[in-house]
């Protein structure tokens, strides 16, 4: 027997699918899943599971992934049931054993050459599986087992996916094919079932032989005697594959179209095997289809791969009531949406209502919408709901809101279930949004119910599991409304609806938002957005406290921090795949290192790892700073207290070990570089310098003075880095002509005045720059 490498012609084989899937590799980055900018759900509108794999997906060939099952798996149950019904004597478990049990392969190989193989077989298997050698049907089964198992080796390579060695494909030897064909020819016409089974075995053997095209002649000679069951269409798939093999794509497509039309389980593989043709060849294939249904499918399949709109029109002309229209229409909508609805960036109100409406209108082909409207009006279609919904959607896009509204009412009446009603709601909200140019009580009234539903209905909150496409609509709704508020000069509502970085830097705005969040007199409309506003009062107080600290207003900062209360946060638990509510208390969060450290070498990781007897939360930290400031004011141990307060400001800066002090949802500075908005505040050394200078003035011993000279050198260095490198560059890394240190004033002082101190020696030991400055290697 000759081994051949896996060829790509097997019907619906995995290799072909993944060959196609190459396309997905390159796009793995940055591409979103299907429908990221969609508000039109094909699941809901087409509402037919059979067509689900064919919905539009910009990522994989099939909407639900690589979903072509091996035909053996696909038809296993049916095959067992058919045989059990035919044999009558054995239950399905037993039949499954005969047909699919792998261990029987060796048994059958062993007994196949004995004089009375059935009896030999019975000695090998347990009693319950003994076959009746007198029964004609049992004899047929046994013969079939021998034949079909011989072939199983060729046509299936996916029994155990993780077995590399058993995946190479074997071609059937010619004499094996002949043997099966002879058995088929000999079998009695009267035993329709058995003859039919053998017929399929012949096709299969021929398909996996070296002479693939012999499938076609055999099929043409024998098909008229076969019942039109699933086996027939599985056989026809081989015929399509054989035509493909000889590059007769027109005939191949006709065969696949018939399979698609008549055999539901094989629809995905038929669509996958279909090969798009140019206009002339496509016309030829239509002429070769012998009935209208096949023609309809040809249009649908060609439309799937090429121009879905013209295919839609052709198909409608042929038969308005064709069941294949719906999925093509949903593809037309989803493909258009991808182009029309542009996914926009977070944290930016980049929606300008006027411009959006104009863009929508410009991007839609009005002639196409006209035709869609005509069909939706006539309603002589298989699924009037999807036409009404589509027409409504596109009328919204071209700006005919009233017409859309009427169509949506009709769609609502036609809706068969809650999901279809939900889809209408989606589109209604979209339509109403676009119809509004100004936010006022009237606009609120028009939007409130659907907006509330959009953000709070259980099915929309858990939209990961919902088929209704609300993700994009939620974002768009917020941006659109926020943009209107912004235009009307209502920054508070604009922020509440769609928060944008920077709002809280304005103290007045911060207070206005606080009052709104605390208010008991909010309107129901406002409540919708308060509920989904990402910042809590705790975030606001914390942000204020942080801003105040960096102005050295520690008292006021403490007051803000004291207002913080624990709150509930709803979040998605990915490991358990559900939402959960947790309690969050900012006041309890501890700083990772001792924020009063002031060492020669800045090593934040070391500070974080070091054992600490006292841990500080932000508030405890502030209180300690205040305590020390009070002592400075009272003239109590000024040197030490000023040094420690200086260290505190140092550590709470970008350079220090307590960056977490400024981590806050609103301020949003978590990264390795600071945004322009906060760079002065977080790179700034003004208050560090202020307190170090106080300490310096109050230093009594030479050791203390030496230390302050060095600490001020650190401040000088940070200022230099910030001004020369960090602030002018968005991202900075020291390379090239980067200057790592200069003759800091503090270095000079240390060298000139304090070279006899112990601290001086410590600096030499620990600080490479200082050694370099001194010229020591």
């Amino acid at each position, binding site marked *: 027997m000759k081994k051949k*490498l*896996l060829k790509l012609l097997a019907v619906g084989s*995995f*290799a072909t699918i*993944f*060959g196609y899937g*190459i*396309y997905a*590799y*390159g*796009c*793995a*980055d*940055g*591409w979103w899943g299907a429908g990221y900018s969609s508000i039109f759900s094909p699941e809901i509108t087409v509402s037919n599971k059979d067509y689900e794999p064919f919905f539009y997906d910009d990522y994989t060939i099939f909407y639900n*992934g*690589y*979903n072509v*099952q091996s035909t053996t798996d696909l038809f296993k149950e049916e095959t067992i049931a058919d045989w059990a019904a035919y044999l009558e004597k054995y239950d399905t478990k037993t039949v499954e054993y005969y047909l699919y049990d792998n261990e029987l392969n060796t048994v059958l190989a062993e007994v196949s050459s004995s004089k009375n193989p059935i009896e030999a077989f019975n000695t090998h298997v347990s009693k319950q599986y003994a076959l009746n050698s007198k029964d004609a049907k049992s004899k047929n089964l046994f013969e079939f087992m021998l034949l079909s198992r011989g072939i199983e080796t060729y046509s299936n390579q996916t029994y155990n*996916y*993780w*077995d*590399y*060695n058993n*995946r*190479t494909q074997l071609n059937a030897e010619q004499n094996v094919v002949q043997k099966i064909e002879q058995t088929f020819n000999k079998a009695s016409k009267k035993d329709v079932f058995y003859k039919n089974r053998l017929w399929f075995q012949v096709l299969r053997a021929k398909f996996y032989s070296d002479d693939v095209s012999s499938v076609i002649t055999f099929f043409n000679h024998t098909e008229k005697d076969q019942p039109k069951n699933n086996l027939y269409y599985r056989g026809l798939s081989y015929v399509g594959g054989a035509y493909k093999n000889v590059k007769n794509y027109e005939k191949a497509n006709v065969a696949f179209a018939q399979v698609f039309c008549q055999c539901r389980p094989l629809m995905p593989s038929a669509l996958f095997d279909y*090969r*798009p*043709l*140019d*206009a002339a060849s496509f016309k030829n294939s239509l002429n070769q289809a012998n009935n209208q249904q096949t023609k309809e499918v040809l249009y649908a399949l060609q439309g799937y*791969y*090429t*121009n879905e709109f013209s295919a839609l029109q052709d198909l409608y002309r042929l038969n308005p009531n064709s069941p294949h229209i719906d999925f093509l229409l949903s593809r037309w909508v989803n*493909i258009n949406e*991808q*182009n029309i609805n542009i996914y926009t960036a977070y944290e930016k109100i980049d929606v300008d209502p006027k411009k959006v409406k104009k863009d929508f209108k410009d991007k839609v082909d009005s002639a196409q919408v006209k035709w869609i409207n005509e069909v939706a009006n006539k309603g002589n279609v298989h699924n009037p709901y999807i036409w009404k919904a589509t027409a409504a959607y596109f009328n919204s896009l071209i700006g005919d809101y009233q017409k859309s509204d009427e169509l949506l009412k009709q769609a609502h009446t036609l809706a068969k279930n809650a999901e279809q009603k939900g889809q209408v709601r989606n589109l209604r909200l979209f339509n109403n949004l676009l119809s509004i140019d100004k936010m006022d009580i009237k606009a609120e009234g028009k939007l409130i119910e659907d907006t509330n539903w959009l953000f709070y209905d259980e099915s929309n909150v858990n939209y990961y599991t919902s088929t209704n496409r609300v993700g994009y609509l939620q974002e768009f709704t917020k941006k659109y409304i926020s943009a209107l508020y912004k235009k009307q000069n209502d920054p508070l509502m604009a922020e509440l609806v769609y928060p944008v970085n920077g709002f809280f830097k304005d103290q007045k705005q911060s207070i206005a938002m606080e009052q709104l969040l605390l208010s008991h007199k909010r309107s129901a409309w406002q409540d919708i957005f308060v509920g989904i506003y990402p910042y809590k009062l705790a975030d606001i107080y914390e942000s204020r406290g942080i801003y105040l600290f960096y102005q050295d207003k520690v008292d006021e900062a403490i007051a803000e921090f004291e207002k913080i209360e624990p709150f509930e946060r709803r979040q998605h638990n*990915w*490991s358990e795949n559900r939402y959960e509510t947790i309690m969050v208390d900012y006041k309890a969060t501890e700083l990772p290192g001792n924020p009063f450290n002031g060492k020669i*070498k*800045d*090593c*934040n*990781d070391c500070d974080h790892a070091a054992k600490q007897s006292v841990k500080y939360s932000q508030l405890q930290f502030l209180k300690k700073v205040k305590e020390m400031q009070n002592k400075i004011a009272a003239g109590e141990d000024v040197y030490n207290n000023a040094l420690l307060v200086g260290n505190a400001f140092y550590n709470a800066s970008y*350079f220090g070990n307590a960056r977490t002090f400024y981590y806050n949802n609103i301020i949003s500075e978590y*990264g*390795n570089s600071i945004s322009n908005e906060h760079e002065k505040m977080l790179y700034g050394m003004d208050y560090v310098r202020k307190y170090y200078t106080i300490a310096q003035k109050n230093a009594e011993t030479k050791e203390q003075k030496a230390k302050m000279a060095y600490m001020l050198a650190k401040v000088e260095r940070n200022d230099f*880095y910030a001004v020369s490198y960090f602030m002018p560059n968005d*991202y*900075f*890394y*020291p*390379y*090239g002509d*980067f200057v*790592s240190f200069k003759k800091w004033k503090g270095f000079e002082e240390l060298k000139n005045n304090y070279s006899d101190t112990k601290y001086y020696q410590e600096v030499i030991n620990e*600080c*490479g*720059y200082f050694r370099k400055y001194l010229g020591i290697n």
Partner: protein
Amino acid sequence: MLLVTFLGACSAKTEKISTAFYFWRTTFSLTETEQQYLKDLDVKKLYIRYFDVALQNNEAIPVAPIVFNQKPEGYNVVPVVYIKNEVFLQNSSADSLAVKVYNYIQQINKSANVSVNEIQFDCDWSLKSKQNYFQFIEEFKKLHPNLSATIRLHQIKYPEKTGIPSVKTGVLMYYNMGVINSGDDNSIYSQKTAKNYINSLHNYNLPLNIALPVFSWGVHIRDNKVVNLIGGLSNNDLQKHPFEKVSENRYRVIEDFIYQGRYLAKNDVVKIEEPSAEQLKEMMKDLKNHLKKKPNEIIFYDLNEKNVTKYEKETFKTVSRW
């Protein structure tokens, strides 16, 4: 932290770095030209894609495993397994997957008569799959400790969030930088995009080798929308009917026709994305400025006669220096 690290980058001469290639086809055999290139470029190591792992009916299965028509004799082979992110989005036991993948690699090794030292995983993991992927790596290390992993640019920017796989080395994929688009932006390589990321390289705590793109593809565009990607297509392929050059790297289809089984409609546009030799040099220059340490290897993606012959051998040599 800043204080400690700045000293000591002063070597002036460049030195050669090992050159390697990714082999990404499903059947392993090398053409004469490919062999000649490998010889001339002194390539000792091939990273061979063994198979993908994807989900089918929620079960992780190997996909399109490689078939060795020729044994990769004389090369140090590193099997690469591409695992789709979806595999780690579901909760399955990492240890059993590790065993399956390991055994499958062994089977392939045996069929090709190779023994391997290093194994590489390629997975564009996300925050949601991180935990499962990293656990898979931990489990795999119990079976085979010497692992490397591909690192995508977007994963170096916030390593504290994205995580760093605990492997011996990473390979920074210096390509697939942008979204495949119909405009002028290049999705394979864009210096501008790269600059948004490479500044973060110094923070990345994993020794990195560099993978550079020598592949090309055609972006198939209809009505300014991307409809498909045609792998392997280069400018050279489109110099004839029914393509009409409309601008640098752009070709219009002048009549409906089928190209390699794909339907190209009249007025469709094919945009070729193909990194130039100059760009390869530019990539290395930028990387030199930002990488903490010299990489041990430059790996070109991917080995293919069509890809390699687009460049002078000198280009590969120049680029493989530090």
